[in-house]
């Protein structure tokens, strides 16, 4: 199974990506798709758009590292991660994660794992564009906690062995 990892400025088509991943396959029992979408508000205030800055090279490397990690943790039969950069308007997709497995537990867990790490380890930064100017979104402690649970699980697993 060769994962698809792509950074792009252009919108993505979730349906086309899942079709590519599942076409001609009969070993996929569970397919989980996560789409992160630009909301029309941020911290309760309306926004005009988000602009995503990223660190080319490192962003791909970090995503690929975590996709490889997910493949080791769960029996996946397919993974696609697409992350956009540049200007994104409300209602448009920012990130797409697709995971496939023979059973749902692995597909769900891997998709959540990848999202938690994309949020906290992949070098992307969101800038909010409002009528009165721009500002950078602050990182959320809850995202760090979400990513941390996978590390603690791994640590517990290793301690138990």
């Amino acid at each position, binding site marked *: 199974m060769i994962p698809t990892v792509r950074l792009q400025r252009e919108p993505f088509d979730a349906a086309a990506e899942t079709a590519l991943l599942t076409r001609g396959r009969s070993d996929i029992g569970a397919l989980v798709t996560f789409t992160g979408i630009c909301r029309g508000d941020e911290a309760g205030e309306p926004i005009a758009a988000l602009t995503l800055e990223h660190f080319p090279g490192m962003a791909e490397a970090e995503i690929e590292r975590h996709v490889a990690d997910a493949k080791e943790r769960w029996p996946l039969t397919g993974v696609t991660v697409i992350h956009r950069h540049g200007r994104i308007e409300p209602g448009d997709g920012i990130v797409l994660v697709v995971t496939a497995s023979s059973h749902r537990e692995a597909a769900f867990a891997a998709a959540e794992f990848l999202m938690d790490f994309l949020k906290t380890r992949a070098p992307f*930064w969101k800038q909010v564009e409002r009528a009165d100017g721009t500002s950078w979104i602050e990182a959320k402690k809850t995202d760090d906690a979400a990513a941390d649970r996978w590390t603690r699980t791994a640590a517990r697993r290793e301690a138990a062995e």
Partner: protein
Amino acid sequence: MSVKVRYFAWVRERIGKPEEEILPPASVTTVGGLMDWLAGRGEEYAYAFENRNVIRAAIDRAHARPDTAIKDAREIAFFPPMTGG
């Protein structure tokens, strides 16, 4: 030996440039030491590194910690906590 430093998001905005070549003294051996040295280079650097605890770093495109050695680094990046996804 000179090293390329890159800045992202508001670190880049505060310093006013996306990257530069720097030549820190031999006494600067860690990521944290480099932040201290950069902070002393002028007002814009002091502002960028004013709250050093929140600044993240990467050496040659892999996450690094304040105590990571910068020996052999070709590229060191500084940026705020990530907010992608």
